[in-house]
């Protein structure tokens, strides 16, 4: 029974990684940028959730909506302010900018909120308690996390596969110039992609602080990195890949704990990344590298 509850634990963790990994993979798919500031969006989301619950005394639903809206807004502003002017710059400039923004956001947060962790009132956000599934007791937060992420991922899939904007996103990610020549407003599509990625990160932030109830200025760094591993593992640029990769990383972590390697979880995750890069650089569901003629 311990294994089953650990597996549910892994699915919970994996859901969070998957949501964050989607942001990485979508942005990479569309402008070939590894957005290393993505983890910091989650950190900002954590603080928004914290302050709207403690200082604002808002209803948890309002706090959750504020978090998602805040993350989305921040990402759109960052994209317009920093990435958009670099549209035609070398990809490396974009990457360095992303790392710079990541460091900047961490330091700004440290300046205003100081470096000490603040505890997060997770019980105000999600109901405490467990339900019995068969003879395994499952925490409400695990259930809410798994269900909410699956709903988010289904919505995202519908958005990408069925709507005009989704088609435009896929068209831009395949051939930006041809899409432009078909009248697609590429700038809007890119901004929208950042917004969707950040909204998912906002949901991820809520689920993350529900699971690990504290907020620090550096909380996004490791989560962001693990989600990045998940995205690469699944095949960066691939949306189903990010989902699979997220769950894989979550399960690797809990299984490491289960077999008694709890001190090695982070190391194992990165070891898996190294192995994937060596054996199958395009990831589990990555597209084959396209030969440019």
């Amino acid at each position, binding site marked *: 029974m311990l294994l089953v509850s650990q597996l549910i634990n892994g699915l919970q963790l994996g859901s969070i990684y998957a949501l964050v990994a989607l942001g990485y993979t979508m942005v990479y798919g569309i402008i070939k940028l590894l957005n290393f500031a993505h983890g910091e969006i989650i950190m900002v989301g954590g603080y928004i959730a914290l302050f709207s619950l403690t200082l604002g005394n808002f209803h948890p639903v309002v706090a959750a909506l504020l978090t998602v809206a805040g993350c989305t807004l921040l990402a759109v502003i960052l994209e317009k302010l920093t990435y958009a002017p670099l549209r035609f710059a070398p990809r490396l400039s974009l990457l360095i900018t992303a790392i710079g923004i990541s460091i900047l956001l961490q330091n700004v947060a440290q300046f205003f909120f100081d470096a000490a962790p603040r505890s997060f009132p997770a019980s105000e956000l999600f109901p405490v308690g467990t339900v019995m599934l068969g003879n395994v007791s499952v925490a409400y937060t695990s259930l809410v996390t798994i269900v909410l992420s699956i709903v988010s991922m289904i919505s995202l899939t519908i958005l990408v596969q069925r709507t005009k904007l989704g088609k435009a996103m896929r068209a831009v990610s395949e051939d930006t*110039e041809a899409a432009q020549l*078909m009248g697609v407003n590429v700038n809007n599509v890119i901004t929208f992609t950042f917004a969707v990625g950040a909204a998912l990160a906002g949901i991820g932030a809520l689920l993350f602080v529900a699971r690990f109830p504290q907020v620090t200025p550096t909380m996004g760094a490791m989560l962001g990195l693990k989600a990045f591993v998940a995205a690469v593992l699944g095949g960066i640029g691939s949306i189903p890949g990010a989902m699979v990769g997220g769950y894989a990383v979550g399960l690797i972590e809990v299984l490491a704990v289960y077999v008694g390697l709890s001190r090695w979880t982070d190391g194992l995750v990165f070891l898996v990344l190294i192995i994937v890069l060596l054996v199958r650089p395009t990831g589990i569901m990555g597209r084959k590298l396209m030969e440019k003629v």
Partner: protein
Amino acid sequence: MRDPKIPLIPERDHNKSPVLECVGLGIDFGGLTAVDDFNITISPTEICGLIGPNGAGKTTIFNLLTKVYNPTRGSIFLEGKNTKRYNTKDVNKEGIARTFQNIRLFKNLTVLENVLVGLHNEMDYRLFGSIFRLPSYWRSERIARERALELLSIFNMQDIAEHKAGSLPYGSQRRLEIVRALATNPSILLLDEPAAGMNPAETESLMEHIGQIRDTFQIAIFLIEHDMQLVMGVCEGVAVLNYGKLIAKGTPSEIQRDPRVIEAYLGTGGQADA
């Protein structure tokens, strides 16, 4: 869509002539002049060919017209409007659509989706509509689908609408590119070597289709082509480019007799001896 009920044969205002006009168009890449002093006038339902030896600058002219490159000199007028401030997307919105020499379909999208991306610009899409899936959104999506299938039926491709574009045979990919371009409701269609890689039978049927598209949509067609049978067969006007310069302009029969054109293609006897 500008008007979802537009028939397959749109009404066009033919007083707005010419549809496309280039005046003294030129572009330099570093010190190299790729195109210089290019002038052309295309009237609303004209089929005009652009020919010339390899490297003459034909595709560069298409890239200038679609603002993939910004011209160094000269102006492009589209239905009388100067396109100086337009970007690639605006050019498309104002009525230029094109295909590519090396096919650039969205290969992982289905045939239908490729056409729908072309229709994108034509449909007013509301962000909230797509997120909250309002009925009006799905209605316009359905109209777009019908329109896309209607356009695909030009080349009898409606039955393969759900296939991945990348999985189609070469000739069908070329035809799909034309349909995708037509979906943006252009007033002038630029075709970059539409017959490249096609067998004689396919070229023959393409020639028929080009004339048919012009008649149905009442648009101008400007095409680059090496297949002289096609150029001489469907074009009403032909422009010849060599080393980035326009060396001749006229009807197909005039062009075939023009000594400068013969020289550009075959070289002069004197040089051959030297």
